[in-house]
């Protein structure tokens, strides 16, 4: 079986076995074990229905949304290295990203397009779930978690929209927060004041959006994604 002795020795070495408790997935037993023992794979059941592997069954939309989230986290972390959330520096940092940071422009493009794609794909995912009736009992709660995740996705995109500090960003956010002001009884004003840290979009708003975008919202999304996947698994999905 083992063509290569060195590799064989590696796979049976103590260190390797301490990391991967299962053998190579060449036997069904090892395949099952890799799902049991691997943290990343344990969101899946050991066996899946063949039907659900068909691409037209889910259009892979949920998985793509998760994939986009991973891409966004990675590119976002790299962008954070070059970006300072301050009115005087933010725009200049965008220019530096574009002109002098190695692959900076690529990172930013990737982050931007992935963000737009994630909103769209998450929405499509919701439609798919609706049209296949996958929200029906016992999956009601998971549908609710999904709706919250969609809202979080939009909020993530929206908070990131301000960070380049260009005209598009500034006025996009101003228009958006002005919409929120329409909430009656002064609640809207309070809400937008809380969000912006003032009455207009300025330095405070930039810092708040930065913290929301890079810390609070991603954490919340990750936790809810965990719940979402867990429920999918428990309710018999892939």
């Amino acid at each position: 079986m083992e063509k290569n002795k060195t590799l064989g020795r590696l796979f049976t070495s103590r260190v390797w076995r301490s990391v991967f408790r299962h053998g190579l997935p060449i036997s069904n037993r090892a395949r099952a074990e890799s799902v049991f023992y691997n943290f990343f794979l344990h969101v899946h059941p050991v066996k899946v229905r063949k039907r659900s592997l068909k691409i037209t069954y889910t259009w892979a939309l949920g998985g793509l949304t998760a994939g986009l989230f991973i891409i966004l986290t990675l590119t976002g972390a790299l962008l954070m290295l070059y970006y300072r959330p301050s009115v005087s520096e933010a725009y200049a940092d965008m220019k530096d990203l574009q002109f002098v940071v190695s692959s900076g422009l690529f990172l930013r493009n990737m982050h931007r397009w992935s963000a737009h794609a994630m909103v769209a794909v998450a929405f499509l995912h919701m439609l798919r779930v609706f049209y296949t009736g996958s929200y029906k009992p016992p999956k009601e709660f998971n549908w609710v978690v999904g709706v919250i995740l969609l809202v979080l996705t939009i909020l993530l995109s929206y908070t990131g929209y301000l960070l380049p500090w260009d005209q598009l960003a500034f006025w996009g956010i101003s228009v958006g927060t002005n919409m929120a002001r329409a909430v009656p009884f002064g609640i809207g004003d309070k809400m937008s004041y809380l969000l912006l840290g003032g009455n207009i979009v300025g330095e405070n708003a930039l810092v708040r959006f930065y913290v929301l975008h890079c810390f609070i919202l991603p954490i919340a999304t990750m936790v809810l994604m965990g719940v979402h996947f867990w429920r999918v698994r428990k309710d018999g999905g892939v």
Partner: protein
Amino acid sequence: MSKEYEAEGSSDAKKIPRRVEFVKDRTAARVRQEETETVMTVPNLVVREIIAFMILVIVLSLLSLFFNAPLEWEANPQHTPNPAKAPWYFLGLQELLHYFPPIVAGVILPMLVVLALVAIPYFNVNLKQEGMWKQHRPQTLVVALITIGAMCIVLLIFDVYAMLVPTLVMTVLMLIPYFVHSEKGFIGWLGTRPVQWWIMTWFVLIVVVLTAIGTLFRGPEWSWTWPWEHIY
């Protein structure tokens, strides 16, 4: 089919067994065993997931290599661009704001939409996914027409043709299977669409139309502008 097969929705597995087979009208009375052919997750599913992820990265990378993310002038609070637009996913709302008072467009409607979405699974409406005109045809028609009519009047009062037209299109599509009886083809397919399908599709159509108008067809002062006649 008679009442005893009516499914009950609940997530309490103790009271009601979890898996419910819905017996639709057109299926034979005998319950076929669920197709349960399964395969190992590793490698079948995992490999597909990895392929999907790689294709995603490839597509996005190509996109990023050829199209640059927009970066406009530095923010200038002194100068409002005309029109000032929110991110594209809010442009449907912004378009609504053009028709309705802010409290309706900016607060009530979005709240209703989110609440409706959250509430969807908790209304056990038509769990069997029966076609809309399957039962109580005249009553359904009266209720549907009154609801749609009332909505259209509201839309007419506010001059919201952007919503009125999709609504009418959907209404016409919905009424076709009522008058034309056919089991086959597109009309047959329409006839099997349940009521919640019609509502959701109508909602999606409205969202798409409003977002598209807001994104592509709105110029200075939020006036109608064709995408090719942008100033500059």
